[in-house]
């Protein structure tokens, strides 16, 4: 009988304790339960963050950042297309920000939590591809132009002609292996708007590239600057930052934005839909827009920062480098890529397939 009493007592008391706990949980403050674990998943380009930025961020806020890398915007888009696999902050380029806004893949950024927005240069506080910067904040910007080896060119190759329409550097030319970029730069050379969707003009660019193909060594997959450095090619169509990184290793390399104009791009920090740690994402974005953190990143990766406060902390050789910060008239000659619809994407892809197949 004692045994019975004891087991009944303990079972009953166990159930009572459970009930008390449940009631307690129900009434405890919501904040305590809704707190995010101190983690962040960051999806970024390769070599596109300062050396110690993530460690410094971890020290400053206690949030542990895991950074994954992607090679191009298409990979980023394809990965997120089927649903966010768990990334909190991503870094798409401006035309892909447009694409993702259209597709509903981005979450609005709460500016009230980003106090460092005031650090951003006024020109970047708004953008045509994201009115009011609802979904994105600027990270880095730059141009696409021609990287060249000074000792192997007659004069500065300041026209797209030298890569698109001339055999002067036969077999020592590398173009970018990205369908829209190559065709859009072709448009600039022929004098058409960069985002021209006219099929006849696309055909014209396609035919020009087919004619030029025998003189092109390779459509480089983002390693054009390595080919330039190792001497495989003498002129290459590349991102300004990539060329700058190899300019540090070799004084014989130069960069120029052709006189017809190049591409003006802007990479942005965004929060994708379904991010598991949106609070931490805001803290991270705010940290990157901080003057010191921004300066550290910019001096390491040698791209142009839209952070005016960070620029003040950087040396003159960075701020006056024409390859990083082109002159105003150069910027005016360049154009920004926009998302031009699915039909345009298909036309470009088929043109590129035909160029590669001929």
């Amino acid at each position, binding site marked *: 009988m004692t045994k019975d009493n004891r087991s009944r007592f303990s079972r009953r008391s166990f159930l009572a304790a459970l009930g008390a706990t449940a009631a307690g949980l129900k009434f405890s403050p919501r904040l305590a339960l809704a707190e995010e674990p101190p983690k962040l998943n960051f999806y970024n380009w390769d070599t596109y963050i300062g050396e110690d930025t993530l460690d410094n961020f971890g020290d400053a806020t206690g949030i542990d950042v895991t950074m994954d890398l992607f090679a191009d915007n*298409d990979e980023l888009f394809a990965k997120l297309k089927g649903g966010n696999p768990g990334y909190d902050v991503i870094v798409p380029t401006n035309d892909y920000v447009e694409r993702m806004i259209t597709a509903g*893949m981005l979450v609005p950024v709460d500016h009230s939590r980003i106090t460092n927005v005031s650090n951003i240069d006024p020109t970047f506080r708004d953008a045509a591809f994201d009115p009011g910067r609802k979904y994105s904040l600027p990270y880095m910007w730059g141009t696409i132009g021609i990287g060249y080896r000074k000792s192997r060119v007659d004069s500065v190759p300041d026209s797209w002609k030298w890569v698109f329409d001339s055999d002067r550097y036969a077999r020592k030319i590398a173009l970018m292996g990205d369908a829209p970029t190559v065709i859009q730069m072709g448009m600039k050379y022929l004098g058409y708007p960069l985002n021209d969707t006219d099929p006849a003009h696309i055909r014209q660019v396609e035919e020009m590239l087919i004619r030029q*193909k025998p003189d092109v060594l390779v459509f480089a997959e983002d390693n054009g600057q390595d080919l330039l450095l190792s001497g495989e090619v003498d002129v290459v169509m590349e991102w300004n930052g990539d060329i700058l990184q190899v300019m540090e290793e070799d004084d014989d390399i130069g960069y120029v934005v052709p006189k017809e104009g190049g591409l003006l791009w802007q990479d942005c920090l965004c929060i994708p839909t379904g991010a598991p740690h949106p609070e931490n994402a805001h803290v991270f974005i705010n940290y990157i827009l901080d003057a010191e953190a921004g300066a550290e990143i910019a001096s390491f990766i040698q791209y142009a920062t839209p952070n005016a406060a960070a620029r003040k902390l950087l040396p003159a050789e960075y701020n006056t480098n024409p390859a990083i910060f082109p002159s105003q008239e150069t910027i005016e000659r360049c154009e920004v890529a926009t998302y031009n619809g*699915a039909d345009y994407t298909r036309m470009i*892809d088929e043109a590129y397939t*035909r160029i590669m197949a001929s």
Partner: protein
Amino acid sequence: MDSWRKNPLVFWVFAVPPAVWLLLFFLTPLALIWVFSFGEKSGLIDVHITWTADNYMRALDPLYLQIFLKSFWFAGITTAICLVVGFVLAIAITFAPGRHRPILLLLVMLPFWTNLLIRTYALIAILRTKGSVNAALEQFWGWGNGLLALLGVEHLQLLGDRFEPLHLLYNNFAVVAGLVYVHLPFMVLPLYAALDRMDRSYIEASLDLGASQLRTFRSVVIPLAAPGIVSGVIITFVPALGSFLTPDLLGGTDSQMIANVIERQFKSANDWPFGAALSFVLMYITFFAIALRSVWSARRDAREALA
């Protein structure tokens, strides 16, 4: 455990886990992609399954057929070279002394254990303008010039005034070299297996009956190794057909294979239904080749049964 008919439980215990794995991680995704191939893009991220044949019609466009043909051509050349080189290697390993064979097989398989990407980059380092091959040739050129200087004829510049490196990279040569390098183990192993199984007394008998070495090789060894040859050819041809990394990294402006086009559909062109259709055309061709092989081997077995 000797027959699953007698011991069905044992059979199911062993068969169920791999079958589930195959179903979940292979057949289901494949079926999904197959359904995609009948779909249409609706908006930026969605695919509407309308059971349309448009994607297949587009895949049979001359532009893409031409690329299929080029891929077959590359895969064919690769398989042919692998067959010749692989056969020689397999014979060498088969007729090597027993204690050397494991080491030789290991040497053939060792590159296999390195990641494909790293092996391809290694080839870039070897073939490029300042790579190993050209560096070695430049050395020889230097020595040749030194020799000519010794003979007093350096002013004639018989070897040219400047070393011209060989262009071994970013062209179709590099793509085929890369494909052969990557697929050779696939060819050697089935060939070795078939040759190892071969009864040596056939060769002895053939030689005793007066056939020359060459005749023996042609009329006895090759027919006996035939199943290995067929397996090796299929295992080499099919992956070579679908390779995209090698033409991407090593190829020039003329080396686009069908898998590169498919990759672009899933990435920059954002047209998954069309990419799915192209992939499945490739797959139907593969199934056809394997079906041919089964028909051939069934007929061969029937012939042997009658003999």
